[in-house]
Each structure stands twice: as C-alpha cells, then as structure tokens.
C-alpha cells in the first residue's frame, strides 16, 4: 500500500494525486486557498473509494457551483467512482449552521413547555378520575395481580433501605440533640424532641424522597420503555386502558406502601435514638419507653402517617404521567426519568411546607 499524496502544479492548474485515496487521505491535500484546480490527475492513484473521490472533488470545487474539473489519467473504475460521487455532489454543499435561538425565544419556549405540562397534568388527572369512577362499581376488573407485584416491588423491596436510613438518622439526631440537652441536664427531653422530629417530619419526608428516587424513577423508566416498544399501543389496541392496567395499580400500590414504610421508618428512627440515648445519656431502654408512653401523642404519629398518602399520590401521578409522555427514543426515557425524580422531590418539599403551615394554623 502506498500512502496518499497530492501535489498542486501551478502551471497547469492541476492537482496530481497518487497512492491510496481513502477518508484518511485528507491530510495529504495541499493548501489550495486562492488557487483554481482545473485538472485532477489520477495517474498515480492505486485505490479510490467514494470518500477519497469526494475529497479530491471537494478540493477542486470548494463551492457546489464551481465547474467540474477535468479528470485526467484515472483508471476506468476510478472514473466510475467520480461519476457516482459527482452525481450526488450537490447534496454535500456546505450548509449554513442552524440558527441558534436567542434568550427570549428560549424563555418563551420554556414557558410554553411549563404551561403545556400543567395542562397535561390536569388532563391526566381528569382522565384518571373518569377511569377510576368507571372501575369503582366492579372490583373484579381491578388489576389485583399487577397491584400485588407493585406492592412487592415498592414496599417489600424498600424495607431494608428505609429502615436502615431512618435508624442512622435517629442515631445522628439523638446524638446532636443529646449533646445540647446534656449541658442543661435536660437529658430526658431528648426523647420528646426525637419523637416529634422523627415521627412528624424526618420519617415521612425521607421515606418519600427514597420512594421517589427508587420507585418513581423505576415506574417512569418501565412505562417509558413500554411506550418505546409500543407495548402501550398494544394494550390500547386490545381494548384495555393503559390507565387501568398500568397507572391505577401503581398509584394504589404507592398509596399503601408509603404509609407502611413511614411507619417502619418511625420504629427504626426511634430504635436508633434509643441506642444513642442509652449509650450517651444513660437513659435506659426502660426509661426511654416509659417517657415515650408519657409524651407521645397519637396525633404526632398520625400527622406523619397522614402526610405519606398525599406524597404517594403525587409521586405516582408524576411518575406515571412522565412515563406515558416518553417519545420514541432512548434519550427521552432518561430525560423523563430524571424529570420524575426532580418533580417528585420538589413536590414533596412544597407539600411538606404546606402541611407545616396548615397544621400550625389548625393548631395541631
């Protein structure tokens, strides 16, 4: 194999090429700026493919409108290659770069997207409600199997991680609270603070965040992939409703699973706190439980558990809707999954703030 070479002959206006002309031969082209190539000479060309032919042709015709150079001393099969490339040469003209959009256009586009999103969500909830009303009178047509599978995935699978996280948070919280309370000799009040924080705020929010990241993302990815592989279309064509088959079982599963997980988180968090108070503050397990019985009000527990179903519905709605709005490409699945997690987290934080204000106003 001989390397590609090209030499420009000023007198004849000829580009003399030789060797093997592939895509890699581009480096062999001399600088032709301001020069006109009238003749392409291929006497020394041993191999030529369409990429090579195009490179030589493009060197001689920088603009698509430039005249075709004379082809000299090429082998017949190479001339045929040039003929093929020359036929389609117009298609390879330099295209102007697509115009970039300004800040204003991008802002407008973003606002429209948010608006479309809000409308879409209202529409989705509406259709879901109609579907639910239609399903209510006939419990036999509910997808109990799918519901069971979802409860297993969302609830059973999340128990170890939810318990583990809340246990550690209980440890940390009790430790920090204890190190402050100790200075005032208010050791036993650590239990009060711990109960309030874990049951009312930490456990519901952290478990909801965990479920949003874990199950919300999984739901979007799964439904989105089903959309890409046309499974959703198949469900519709079989006369079934994707909402009834896929969405409602998932919403119900999350609705059941999240309060249960929060309750497990409550227990784990208290257990973590109990361990630390015994070690650090010399509050025995018996004293701890005694104090819990004294100060724990049912409403503290119920406030935390009551927030969970609301979080669950929002996570499930967002995740299912995002999954169903995936378009038919792989990137869309990733983008929508990310969007589910972000939207769910924002929703959880905002809802939690609304709850906090609401409970204060109601005096709970």
């Amino acid at each position, binding site marked *: 194999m001989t390397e590609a070479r090209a030499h420009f002959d000023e007198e004849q206006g000829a580009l003399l090429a030789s060797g093997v002309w592939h*895509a890699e031969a581009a480096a062999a082209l001399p600088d032709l700026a301001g020069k006109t190539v009238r003749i392409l000479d291929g006497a020394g060309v041993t191999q030529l493919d369409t990429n090579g032919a195009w490179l030589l042709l493009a060197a001689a015709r920088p603009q698509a409108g430039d005249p075709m150079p004379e082809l000299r001393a090429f082998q017949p099969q190479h001339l045929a290659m040039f003929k093929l490339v020359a036929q389609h040469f117009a*298609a*390879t003209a330099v295209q102007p770069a697509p115009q970039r959009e300004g800040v204003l256009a991008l802002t407008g586009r973003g606002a429209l997207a948010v608006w479309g999103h809000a409308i879409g969500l209202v529409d989705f909830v509406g259709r879901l409600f109609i579907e639910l009303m239609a399903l209510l009178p006939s419990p036999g047509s509910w997808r109990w199997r799918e519901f069971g599978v979802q409860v297993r995935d969302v609830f059973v699978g999340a128990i170890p991680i939810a318990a583990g996280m809340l246990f550690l948070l209980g440890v940390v919280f009790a430790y920090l609270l204890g190190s402050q309370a100790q200075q005032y000799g208010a050791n036993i009040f650590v239990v009060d603070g711990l109960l309030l924080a874990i049951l009312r705020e930490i456990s519901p929010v952290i478990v909801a965040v965990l479920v949003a990241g874990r199950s919300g993302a999984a739901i979007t990815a799964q439904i989105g992939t089903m959309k890409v592989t046309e499974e959703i279309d198949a469900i519709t064509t079989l006369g079934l409703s994707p909402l009834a088959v896929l969405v409602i079982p998932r919403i119900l599963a999350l609705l059941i699973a999240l309060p249960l997980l929060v309750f497990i988180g409550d227990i784990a968090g208290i257990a973590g706190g109990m361990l630390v108070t015994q070690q650090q503050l010399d509050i025995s397990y018996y004293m701890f439980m005694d104090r819990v019985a004294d100060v724990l009000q049912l409403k503290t527990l119920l406030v935390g558990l009551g927030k969970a179903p609301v979080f669950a519905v929002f996570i499930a709605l967002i995740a299912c809707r995002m999954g169903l709005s995936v378009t*038919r490409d*792989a990137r869309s699945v990733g983008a929508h999954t990310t969007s589910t997690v972000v939207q769910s987290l924002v929703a959880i934080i905002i809802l939690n703030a609304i709850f906090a204000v609401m409970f204060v106003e109601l005096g709970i």
Partner: protein
Amino acid sequence: MRDTVIDVRNVSTTLGGHGIHRDLSLSVARGEVVALIGGSGSGKSVLLREIIGLLKPQAGRIELFGQSVRDSTPEQMNMLRKRFGVLFQDGALFSSLTVEDNVATPLFEHTRLPSATCRRLARLKLALAGLPPGVGRKRPSELSGGMRKRVALARALALDPELLFLDEPTSGLDPISARAFDTLIRLLADSLGLTVFLVTHDLDTLVSIIDRVIVLSNGRVLGSGTVAELKTIDDPWLRDYFAARVSKEETKHGN
C-alpha cells in the same frame, strides 16, 4: 483463484445447551453478493454475529480478509471493523442523534477529518442511499421504516467498507420499497465493488439481486448455488420454501 473475503471453517456453536451449528463451513469471494437462507432458528443470525465478532463459536475458525476473527486482539479487530459495514435488522440507529450525525459517527470515530467534512461526507452517503436532501437534520424517530433502513445503509457505508453485512434488509418493508432497496444494494455493490453477505427470508431478493445462495439447515450448509441450482436439491424444507414462492406466483396470475 479469486480472493476469499469470508472464510468459515468447521464452526460449531452451542447456545444454552442447544447445538446450533455442527461443523459448518462456507466461504465468500470478493465481489460476490451472497445470501444466507434457512428456516427460523437455523442459526443464520447467530452465524452472522459470529462472523462480525459479536459472538464466539465453541469450535472452528472464522476469517475475514484472511485474518482470524477469534484470535484478533481488540486493536486488530478495530482495524478489521473499519473494513466492513453492518446493517442491523431494525436499523439500530442512534435515537439521540440526528440522521446526519448517525451516518457521520463512524467518520468522527475512525478518521481524523474535521467534523464539517465528516458531515458533508455523511450527506454524500445519504444521497447515495437514495435519501432526499433535508433528511439529515431529522431524528430517526421521524422517519418511516424504509427510510430508516436507508439511513442505516448509509451509516454502514460511511467508511467505504469492502464488505457489507445485511441482516434481513427487506424485512418490515412493503414489496415496492423492498424491491427498491434490493436494487439499491445491487447498484451500490456493483458501482463500489462491494462484497455483500446478507441474511434474508425474502425470496424476491434472492431472485433479483443475488449471485449465490447458501442454505443453512440442521446446523450445516445444505447447499450453495443459484436459485435454479438449489431447486434441484431434494430437501423437504427447501421444497416447501420454493413451493411457497410458486403458490405466490400462481395467486398473482390468478388475479
């Protein structure tokens, strides 16, 4: 003697406890357009994947351009990959890239050309594959099945390979698009001097553009030759296969 491009020698494959190929041998010479046919599950696609180095056979030897696929180092395999192009069954276009960038990807990755040149060459390949200008800016999901196949063909041709593998190139296309695609493959094979190895179910493809047909049955090569030559082989599957074609023609005349 003609230059052998694909050489498969005594290949045996077992997948999941099933014997797929038993002592299978075949070869393809430079410039040939060869089709591999066989019933469903006869291991056509597995053989194709073995030849392009995606699967390893349990025994035997597969050579491309005289170089063993099995014993190649990753670097050697990459050199080899630049010399052949593959058209996957469903196109396998990258859905996150535009059509133009899909075709330009092999050029971006395997050459040192500036990206503007890569894109212009990509447009040349799209034009060669018979796609109208303006398709380049679209996304694969906006194209019809036939156009996606053409884009995939353009991508397979991006580096001007000497050898082209096609996995069921006309499946999922309507008969008119399928014949047009066949004609395009033959045209490109002749004008670019390509060797083409294709797996197909489509009898019309065999009759219209193929130099030689290789029949796979029970893990072996049952026969090889032109369609007329194959009709003389006495094998139940092959008889049924061609009978399907005959009855199709009869219905056509009947109408």
